């Protein structure tokens, strides 16, 4: 009986490791075009988890991990705009609604329709976008580009910088996910 339980546990583990894909090094970039200066930042330490069985998808990113070319811009981003001390993380929780159409056993490129909620600056909003999922032999690549509006997330732009900072922010996600091993 004990042997059987162990076998069962082992089996469960295998199933889990095949079902879940994870990374701690997902790349998230954002870009905003404005007449005076473009604003661009990169974060290479986002976490992502995809359950290929259910299609559930999560991203989590530390706001302080966004790096700008201009150090002062980075400080102001954290201090004045996203208030990183109060709201340290941005999170996406959702799922791939056409998960059944993606064959994770076969290498290839698939289009995923993603729907979920985005939490940023303490505010949660619905987000719907498309992503490209590339299935490789031993990993998955997920890429997506979508726009966020600062005003949706109550990120205020003071009058003096209204022409410096655009309300629309283009977000690019680039994640390579590996099978999650226990």
């Amino acid at each position, binding site marked *: 009986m004990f042997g059987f339980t162990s076998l069962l546990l082992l089996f469960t583990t295998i199933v889990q490791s095949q079902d879940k894909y994870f990374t701690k090094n997902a790349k998230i970039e954002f870009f905003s075009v404005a007449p005076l200066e473009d604003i661009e930042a990169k974060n290479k330490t986002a*976490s992502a988890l995809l359950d290929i069985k259910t299609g559930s998808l999560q991203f*989590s990113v*530390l706001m302080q991990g966004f790096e700008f*070319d201009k*150090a002062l811009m980075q*400080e102001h981003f954290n*201090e004045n705009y996203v208030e990183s001390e109060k709201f340290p993380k941005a999170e996406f929780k959702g799922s791939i609604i056409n998960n059944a159409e993606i064959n994770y056993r076969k290498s290839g490129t698939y289009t995923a329709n993603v729907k979920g909620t985005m939490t940023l600056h303490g505010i949660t909003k619905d987000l719907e976008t498309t992503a490209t999922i590339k299935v490789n032999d031993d990993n998955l690549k997920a890429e997506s580009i979508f726009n966020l509006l600062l005003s949706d997330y109550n990120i205020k732009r003071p009058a*003096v910088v209204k022409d410096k900072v655009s309300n629309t922010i283009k977000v690019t996600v680039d994640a390579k996910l590996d099978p999650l091993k226990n």
Partner: protein
Amino acid sequence: MKPKLLPFVLLFVKGSFAQNEDTLNIAVVDKPIKEKVTAPFKSSRVIMSHSIQMLKPGVLDFLILHRFGNVNRGLYEFFGLDQATFRLAFDYGITKDLTIGIGRSSYKKELDGFLKYRIIQQSTGQNASPFSLVVVGGMTVNTLKFADPTRKNYFSSRLGYYGQVLAGRKFSEAFSLQLMPTIVHQNLVTTSKDPNDLFAAGIGGRIKLSKRISLNADYYYVVNKNEELENFHNPLSIGFDIETGGHVFQLHFTNAIGMNERVFLTETINNWGDGDIQFGFNISRAFQIKKKAPIP
């Protein structure tokens, strides 16, 4: 995350596998354990003093500091605005913990330079430090013509030095405070009663009124001033910081004379009580000279 909690969290993560729940809690464990506390002040100056805020590496800060005349001079002097002294300065962040700077003041045609090094940065989490510790060492050169050219004058007579320890803490997002024990050494002093080594205890702080505006003040108590000098007063400055992205504007009122440590700790003869205060403003404009190293 405290280490004691870790097994518990792992257990929780393990548990969530079974329930097929929020597995991303792993990411929470991965959060950097020690986090630096940043931006205690808007500018590298409280008002007249150095602040515990350092320049970022590769940032050149161009400072224009203005002091007008005494506001109680009335309309004829346009409340002091007819007289202005200024200090132009460049500060540069060599590393995140080392800043150098040079400046020139119109008052006494004095040059000054300093090195500012942060020994400890305030942080939270494991092995945290509750405060920041910064040391500043500076030198001043008075370039006025010698008062008495007939006697033997030495170049060293022009020199002054100051050393300072800044111990400060950002108590909350809005409130930061720092203590500033300071020593000023002057090779040549006006009278024999004036000490060559002057000790002062300073305090400075800010309260943020909004994200971009803060109320600042700094004050020094000079410990061993020349008691015969009746009109010497301790310098006190009060003002607002207004930050607009690349610029910080500091509008303030002060009784301090001059804009470097040597001057305002030894020559401040104005008294707040008599209304001998000056309006002043500092403008700080930061330029990113060196791009940050690309993230690997």
